[in-house]
């Protein structure tokens, strides 16, 4: 196992590359989810405000 991690002495290079790959793709996975959730929350807030306005007409 430790031999596998050492990668013939190039472990630092190989694993840092794979770490960058994993981190960037993880961000790429999370970002649209957060975006969608934010948009939906905003939309719900807008609907709620509209309902309030129609319930208590000024």
């Amino acid at each position: 196992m430790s031999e596998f991690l050492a990668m013939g002495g190039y472990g630092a290079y190989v694993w840092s590359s794979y770490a960058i790959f994993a981190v960037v793709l993880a961000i790429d996975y999370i970002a649209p989810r957060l975006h969608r959730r934010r948009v939906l929350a905003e939309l719900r807030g807008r609907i709620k405000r509209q309902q309030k306005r129609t319930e208590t007409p000024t």
Partner: protein
Amino acid sequence: MNTLTLWFHKIGSPPTFYRLAGRFTPWLFALAALTGLVGLYGGLVLAPADYQQSDAYRIIFIHVPSAWMSLFIYFVMAVNAFIALVWRIKLSETLAMCCAPIGAAFTAITLATGSIWGKPMWGTWWTWDARLTSELVLLFLYVGVIGLYHAIEDRRQAARAASFLALVGIVNVPIVHFSVKWWNTLHQGSTVRLLGPSAIDASMLWPLLLMALATKLWFLGSLFARARASLLELEAGKDWAREEALRTGAAP
């Protein structure tokens, strides 16, 4: 022809696409993860060490697929940008703009891993080789498209302006590659080769191809997820977006 255009319009309408993409996205990510894991197992464990580069060559399994993706995504973006500008299809505008961050991510991975690979192999983090320089310019083009898209208030106008820039950029990429190649040969012969003169062995090839497939699937999944969020934002006033908001608000 008629059924085809009808089908196209139906798929192209935001609510339909939103629903379809929502159904496909988890599967695409799952498939990408599966092929990716098999590919990585093949690349990191099964494939033998290279006789020239020892184990350092294993960076190839993420570097080369990412490099392919950086160009492939730009091409997809430009095709969508073209459709968006000529036929003014809202879905194409959204898809083109959602391609840009994913492409930028893969280009950044390509540059970072290439530089990390270059250090033990060439003894330097960076060299002004044609491929590296055009990849860097490609990153700037992606960032330019993203920056222009976010700098303009009106979403649809922003998408059209950035689409136009993407089309200008696709003319630019081969010119940059060619010019840097010419410039480099003027100064010095190209001394760096990514792979040794030997052709790649089958035991290294299949994980590489699997990884290329995995990144393509990942791109589709990510594109669909991003396009869903953007369409929702773009169509916030429409009924289907409200229904979606209320549906997801009731569920959690």
